[in-house]
């Protein structure tokens, strides 16, 4: 078979979110790989400029379903830095608690998805059953199973009662036992190791050069973690290890994520033990004074960066979000060099893609100095048809058939 270009996406059973990959195959070997993102673009950065800071907390939370607390905390930290508000210790501890519970939730979900991508559905069912334990705890603490809504500018909205703390500890004990079992499965199940080892290799220099973040980078031996290097919330008072691994492949990423799960249980226990008394919020005025701030957060997928610029009114002037998947995406073509088609879903799943987080517009300065123009909806449609025609795809036959069918009806 000569070279074929096969589209993976935008709709594909392997992908949880729409994105388009074009893979050139020769038999089973991948010859070339190109990615096209942007199917999930919703104009969130622009929408943030139209709403007040309080409303924006909820909007940034909904950038992603599973890193929702990361985005909302990162945004709130930036705004509090501009306003010069000092948040109470108790609020910081509660933010850390929810952040770590979210990390547990995300990594358990990832384990199931990785199992599903290699055809190991049993692992999917078992890990997602245990994920229900975490979601019930989060519903108990915050009022909802995803999109927790616990942040507000100046602190948190809900308190942790001692009875709830006891339940959290019980759940963490159960989850720790189960995670130990999954670590055993991942390190001893021969068919799984065969699919995960040696796949998606990313050497350390390439990881640093291409800007990988999070577990993807830590599995290649890059020792970077925002929680330790630039502590925020209550992480400067917590004792935890940063898990790195030398395998540089998907197996290494699995080990890193499971190690992080065990560390998260330790952090959750420390938070509940050491939680200080104090108020939940501090008063922050509605009109934030002019200024700008950058804030970073270690989301389950890597480093999340938010930039907020305020101008003295109730609404921000500019909000920019850099999600971790954007940094990790560029490594995928390097990882897929010389691999087979069967490795593609697990390699993409191993960077834990969250394309809802990623799709933002970037304004590219057109160096040729031509004027920019804005297109209306009919113009955009004609532009699309012309582009497809230039690629050799002609819609006129299809349009004729559809018109005939509409006439018959």
């Amino acid at each position, binding site marked *: 078979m000569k070279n074929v270009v096969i589209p993976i996406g935008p709709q594909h059973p392997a992908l949880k979110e729409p994105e388009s990959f074009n893979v050139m195959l020769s038999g089973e070997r991948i010859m070339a790989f190109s990615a096209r993102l942007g199917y999930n673009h919703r104009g969130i950065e622009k929408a943030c400029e139209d709403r007040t800071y*309080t409303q924006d907390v909820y909007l940034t939370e909904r950038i992603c379903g599973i890193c929702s607390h990361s985005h909302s905390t990162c945004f709130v930290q930036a705004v509090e830095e501009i306003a010069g508000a000092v948040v109470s210790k108790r609020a910081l501890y509660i933010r850390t608690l929810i952040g770590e519970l979210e990390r547990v939730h995300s990594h358990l979900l990832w384990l199931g998805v990785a199992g599903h991508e290699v055809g190991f559905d049993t*692992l999917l069912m078992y890990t997602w059953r245990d994920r229900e334990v975490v979601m019930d705890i989060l519903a108990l603490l915050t009022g909802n199973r995803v999109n927790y809504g616990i942040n507000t500018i100046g602190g948190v909205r809900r308190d942790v009662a001692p009875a709830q703390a006891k339940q959290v500890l019980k759940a963490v004990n159960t989850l720790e036992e189960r995670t130990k079992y999954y670590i055993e499965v991942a390190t001893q199940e021969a068919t799984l190791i065969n699919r995960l080892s040696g796949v998606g290799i990313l050497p350390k220099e390439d990881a640093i050069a291409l800007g990988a973040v999070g577990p993807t980078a830590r599995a290649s031996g890059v020792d970077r973690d925002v929680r330790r290097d630039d502590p925020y919330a209550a992480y400067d008072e917590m004792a935890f290890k940063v898990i790195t691994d030398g395998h540089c492949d998907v197996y290494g990423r699995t080990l890193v994520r499971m190690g992080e799960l065990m560390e998260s249980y330790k952090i959750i226990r420390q938070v509940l033990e050491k939680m200080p008394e104090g108020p939940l919020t501090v008063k922050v005025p509605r009109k934030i004074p002019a200024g700008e701030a950058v804030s970073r957060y270690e989301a389950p997928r890597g480093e999340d960066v938010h930039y907020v610029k305020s101008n003295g009114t109730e609404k921000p002037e500019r909000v920019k979000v850099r999600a971790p998947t954007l940094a990790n995406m560029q490594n995928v073509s390097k990882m897929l060099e010389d691999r087979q088609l069967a490795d593609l879903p697990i390699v993409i799943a191993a960077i834990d893609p969250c394309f809802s987080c990623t799709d933002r517009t970037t304004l590219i300065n057109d160096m040729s100095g031509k004027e920019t123009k804005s297109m209306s909806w009919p113009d955009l449609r004609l532009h699309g048809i012309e582009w497809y025609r230039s690629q050799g795809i002609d819609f006129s036959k299809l349009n004729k058939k559809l018109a005939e069918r509409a006439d018959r009806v």
Partner: protein
Amino acid sequence: MIRPGKMLRQVLKSIFKKPATTRYPFIKSAMPENFRGKIVFHPERCIGCRMCMRDCPSNAIVIKKVGEKQFEAEFDLGKCIYCAQCVDSCLKKALESSKDFELAAIDRKTLKVKFGADDKRST
């Protein structure tokens, strides 16, 4: 020791355990206490300051004046994101979250819920 079939014991034990699935909708699980479901309005406590309208991220609540110190609230359940920010913003605690979350409807008009000024209790 690396061997195939590591999950054999767990998998065989599961035959004798009860399935982990809750047979919804025949068996409904209870939601925890501070679950953020549908919002409930107490018109007797409302003073018409409209802080809830100002803070709602999706403009789902509209407070209308229907008489002297009497206000009614209209919710669009389709627009509401159940964040309970209005509950926090209300100065007189006239809004509270209930545990009701089974709000799917076939007709969009039924999603606009009105709490009248003379309802002394939530509907």
